[in-house]
C-alpha cells in the first residue's frame, strides 16, 4: 500500500513539475541576447548592450535618422555661434521622466556635468565641452573649448537623466566630493530616464527586463513590445534552443557562421544584416621593419584577396573603400580601392628597400581570437603574401594582450587585425581615432603614424562647422591616407542577427538601419505580432 502511495506522490510531483503554467506573462514580449555585463547608467556604460539599454530607457537632445544625420528630439531646434564655440538648444516642454517630473534644461546640464565629471562611458566624446549652462527652463547652452564641427553627432550619446531623482539617491561620502557617488550605486540597477521603456527587473549577471512606458511623449507603434528583455548569454546552443522555442526574438551578432546556418533552418527565422559603421583593418606598423616601407605596404595591399574575405569568410560584408566605412556620413566613395593584382604588388615590392632580403624580415600578424573567423582571414593573408614572397607569421592573440602590445612602439606587432567602430556617425570620428597622433599606444592605432601633416588636416576638418565644407576636407584626408597605405582596408562589417521574421517586424533588417551602435534595437520601432507567434508555437 505504502508503495502505491509513494508512486502516486512521485507521479504527482512529476506532473506538477512538467505542467506548470506561467502567470502574468507579457502579451508582446521581445527578447534579445547580449554579451554581458550591461550598465544602465549613462555615465558608466559604452559597450553594445549598454548602448541598447540607453536608447530604450533615456532620451537625447537629438535623434539620428537612418543616414545618421541629427534630427530634433528633446531639442526642437538649435543654433551655433559664428565662432562655433557656443551651441544653444531649445527644448520641448511637457516631456516627463518616468516618475512624472518634467524634463528641463537643468536635467540636461546635470547629465552633461555628471558624465564629464565621472569620465567613464561616453564621456570621451565630450572632452571639448568647457561648460554647460541652463539660462531658462527650456534652453541649454554648451560652451566648447574649441570649435568642433561634429558636435551635434556626439549628442546622440548624451542621455538625459532625472536630476532630482539622481540627487535624491546620492550616497555620501563618495569619490566626487559634494556629489558623493553621483548616484552611481542607484543607477546601477534603476533608471532615471524619460525613454520609451522603464526598468522592471535587473538581476545583474542574468538579464535586464524593461516594460513599456505608456506615457511616452512620442508615438509608439501599437505592436511595440510591451516587455523588452535583454538576456546575458551568447552560448550558441542556448541561443538556438531559445530561438526554436520562440523565447528569443533577435539573437546576438557574435554567433559563429555555423550557428547562423543552424538558426536559419528554424521555421520563421531569418538572418537580418545591416552595416553599423564598423570596419576591419589590418593595421600596419609604419615604424617597424619591414612594414615601415611604403612600397612593401602597398605590395601587401595589392596582393591581398579581399574578394575571398567578403565572399567566403565574412559573408555579407563588403570590401572597404579606404579608411572610412561607406555607410558613414562623410565617407568618400571615389577613394582608391586596392584589389588583388599580383603584377602591381610585385612592381611595388621591387621598389621596397627590403626586396631581396624578405626572408630576414618576417611580417608578424596578431589576430584577435574572437570572432573565430579572424583566423581564416589571417591564414588567407599569409597565403596571399606567400604569392609575392613575403614571409608571414600569424599569432592568435587574446584581446587583452593585443591592447598590452599596442601600448608601446616596440611591442606593437607589424600588423594587428582589429575592428574599429566610429565614436559618432561621421567620417571624422574614424579618421581621428584611427590615425591622429593622440591615439597611438591605444588599440585603435597600431600604425604609429605620428604624421603632423595628417594631424593638422584632421584638426582643421573637425573645427569646420559647415557640414559640406567639413566633408570636402574629409575626402582629401581619405585620399591622403590611402596613398600612405598605413593599413589594409579589409571590409565594412555587416552586423548579422538571426531574428524571428515570421512574427517580428524589425526595421533594421529591411534596410532602415541607423549606423550607430544600439539605435537599431529601439523597441518603439519594432513590431511583435503575438498571434503569429502563437501560430508558430502550435
Amino acid at each position, binding site marked *: 500500500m505504502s508503495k502505491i502511495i509513494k508512486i502516486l506522490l512521485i507521479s504527482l*510531483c512529476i506532473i*506538477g*513539475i*512538467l505542467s*506548470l503554467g*506561467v*502567470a*502574468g*506573462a*507579457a502579451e508582446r*514580449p521581445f527578447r534579445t541576447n547580449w554579451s*554581458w*555585463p550591461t*550598465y544602465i547608467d549613462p555615465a*558608466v556604460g*559604452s*559597450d553594445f548592450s549598454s548602448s541598447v539599454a540607453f536608447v530604450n530607457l533615456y532620451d537625447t537632445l537629438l535623434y539620428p535618422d537612418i543616414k545618421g544625420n541629427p534630427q530634433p528630439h528633446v531639442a526642437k531646434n538649435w543654433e551655433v555661434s559664428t565662432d562655433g564655440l557656443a551651441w544653444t538648444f531649445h527644448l520641448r516642454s511637457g516631456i516627463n521622466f518616468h516618475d512624472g517630473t518634467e524634463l528641463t534644461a537643468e536635467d540636461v546640464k546635470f547629465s552633461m556635468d555628471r558624465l564629464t565629471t*565621472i*569620465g*567613464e*562611458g561616453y*564621456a*570621451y566624446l565630450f*572632452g571639448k565641452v568647457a561648460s554647460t549652462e541652463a539660462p531658462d527652463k527650456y534652453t541649454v547652452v554648451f560652451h566648447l573649448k574649441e570649435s568642433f564641427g561634429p558636435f551635434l553627432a556626439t549628442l546622440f550619446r548624451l542621455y538625459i537623466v532625472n536630476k532630482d531623482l539622481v540627487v535624491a539617491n546620492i550616497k555620501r561620502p563618495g*569619490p566626487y566630493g559634494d556629489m558623493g557617488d553621483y548616484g*552611481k*550605486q542607484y543607477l*546601477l540597477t534603476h533608471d532615471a530616464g524619460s525613454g520609451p521603456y522603464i526598468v522592471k527587473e535587473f*538581476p*545583474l*549577471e*542574468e*538579464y535586464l*527586463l524593461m516594460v513599456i512606458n505608456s506615457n511616452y511623449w512620442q508615438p509608439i507603434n501599437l505592436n511595440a513590445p510591451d*516587455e523588452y*528583455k535583454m*538576456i*546575458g*548569454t551568447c*552560448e550558441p*546552443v*542556448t541561443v*538556438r*534552443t*531559445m530561438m*526554436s*522555442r520562440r523565447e528569443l526574438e533577435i539573437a546576438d551578432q557574435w554567433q559563429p557562421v555555423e550557428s547562423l546556418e543552424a538558426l536559419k533552418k528554424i521555421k520563421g527565422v531569418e538572418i537580418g544584416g545591416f552595416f553599423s559603421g564598423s570596419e576591419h583593418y589590418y593595421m600596419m606598423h609604419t615604424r617597424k621593419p619591414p612594414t615601415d616601407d611604403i612600397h612593401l605596404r602597398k605590395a601587401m595591399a595589392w596582393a591581398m584577396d579581399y574578394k575571398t574575405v567578403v565572399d567566403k569568410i565574412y559573408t555579407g560584408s563588403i570590401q572597404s573603400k579606404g579608411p572610412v566605412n561607406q555607410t558613414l556620413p562623410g565617407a568618400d566613395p571615389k577613394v582608391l580601392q586596392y584589389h588583388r593584382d599580383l603584377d602591381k604588388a610585385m612592381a611595388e615590392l621591387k621598389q621596397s628597400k627590403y626586396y631581396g632580403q624578405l626572408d630576414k624580415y618576417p611580417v608578424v600578424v596578431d589576430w584577435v581570437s574572437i570572432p573565430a573567423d579572424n583566423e581564416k582571414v589571417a591564414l588567407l593573408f599569409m597565403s596571399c603574401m606567400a604569392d609575392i614572397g613575403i614571409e608571414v607569421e600569424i599569432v592568435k592573440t587574446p584581446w*587583452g*594582450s593585443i*591592447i*598590452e602590445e599596442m601600448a608601446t612602439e616596440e611591442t606593437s606587432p607589424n600588423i594587428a587585425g582589429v575592428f574599429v567602430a566610429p*565614436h559618432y556617425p561621421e567620417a571624422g570620428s574614424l579618421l581621428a581615432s584611427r590615425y591622429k597622433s593622440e591615439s597611438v599606444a*591605444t*588599440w*585603435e592605432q597600431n600604425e604609429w603614424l605620428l604624421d603632423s601633416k595628417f594631424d593638422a588636416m584632421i584638426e582643421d576638418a573637425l573645427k569646420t562647422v559647415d557640414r559640406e565644407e567639413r566633408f570636402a576636407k574629409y575626402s582629401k584626408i581619405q585620399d591622403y591616407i590611402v596613398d600612405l597605405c598605413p593599413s589594409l582596408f579589409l571590409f565594412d562589417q555587416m552586423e548579422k542577427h538571426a531574428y524571428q521574421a515570421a512574427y517580428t517586424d524589425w526595421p533594421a533588417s529591411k534596410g532602415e538601419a541607423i549606423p550607430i551602435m544600439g539605435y537599431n534595437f529601439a523597441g518603439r520601432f519594432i513590431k511583435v505580432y503575438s498571434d503569429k507567434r502563437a501560430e508558430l508555437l502550435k
Partner: protein
Amino acid sequence: MRTIKFIAKRLAYSVFVLIGLSILIFIIARVMPGHPARMALGARAPEWAVERLREEMHLNEPLYAQYYYWIKDALHGDFGMSLVTRRSVAHDIKEFFPASLELALYAGIFMGIVGITLGAISGWYANTWVDNLVRMLSYIGIVTPSFVFAIFFVLLFGYVLEIFPTIGKLTPGVVPPPLITRITTLDALITGHFTAFFDALKHLLLPAISLAMGPLSQEARITRASLVDNVQKDYVASERSCGIPEQTIMFKYLLKPSLIPTVSIYGLDFASLLGNAFLIELIFNWPGLSRYGMNAMLQKDLNAMTAVILVFGLVFIIVNIIVDLAVGYLDPRIRLGAERTQ
C-alpha cells in the same frame, strides 16, 4: 567534546591556510598581464579617469602596501568594489553564492544517491552484464566534460522535446519567493510559494544533472571497487555461513564500510562542483558565483577574483572537516586512532 576540539583545531589551521591562499592569489592576480583600471573603464576612457581609479584601488603603491589595504578591509568583511558589476564584492558574493550553492547542493544530492546506488548495484552484481553496463556508463561519465552533457541535455530536453527550460532560475511571470536564504527552492518552500518551488526545481534539473554526471560516475566506480573488495572479506563469508540473508549482509554489514572511500572523494567532489560550474552556469545563464568568478578573471577584476577564490577555499576547508567527521563516524578505527594520538 572531542569533536568540538577537533573542529576548533581544524578551523584554527584553516585560518593559516586562508591567509596563505589570500597572499598567493593576491600576488598572482596582480602580476597577470593587463591593466585592471583601464579594462574597467574601457579603452576610450580618458587617462585622468583611469589614473583616479588606480589611485582609489591603491594600484600605484607597492604590492605589500596593496595587500595591507586589502587584508585590512577584508577582515572587516569589505572586499572592495568589483570592477565589472561596479558594486561591493561582498554584495555580489551574497547574491551569487547562494545560486551556486543551490546548484551544487542539488547536483550533490543527485551525485550521492545515483552514484552510490549504481556503485552498490555494480559491486553486488560484480562481473555480470549489469556490472559491465554500469562500468561502461561510468567510464563515459568520467571522460565526458560536464559542458558536453549540458549541451546534450539542452538540445534533447530543451530543443527537441521542449519539456525543460534552458536558462535562468525562474520562468518570467512566476512570482519569486521572498529572499530569506536566497536559495530559491528553499525560500519557496519556507514561504509556501509552491508554484515558484516547482518552477525553480524544473530550472535546476538540467544544470544540476549535467554538473553531477562526472563526479557521480566517480562515486559509482569507487563504491563498486570498495564493495567488491569488502565482499571478499572473511566477515562476509562468516555472515553467509551463519545464514544471514544476503539483503541484510549488503545493507547492514557491507555498504557502510564500503562507503568510506566514497565519502572521502564525495566531499572533494562536492567542493569542486562549485568551482567547476562555470560552463554549466554559462550555458544555462545561471547567475552563480562560479561564472562571476570566471568573468572576474577574464576581465582582471582583482577584488572579485581574490574574494571568490577565498570563498571557494573556505568551502573546501569546511567540506573537508565535514568529510573527516563523516569518515570518523563510518569507520571507528579512524575515530579511535585519532583519539589514541590525542
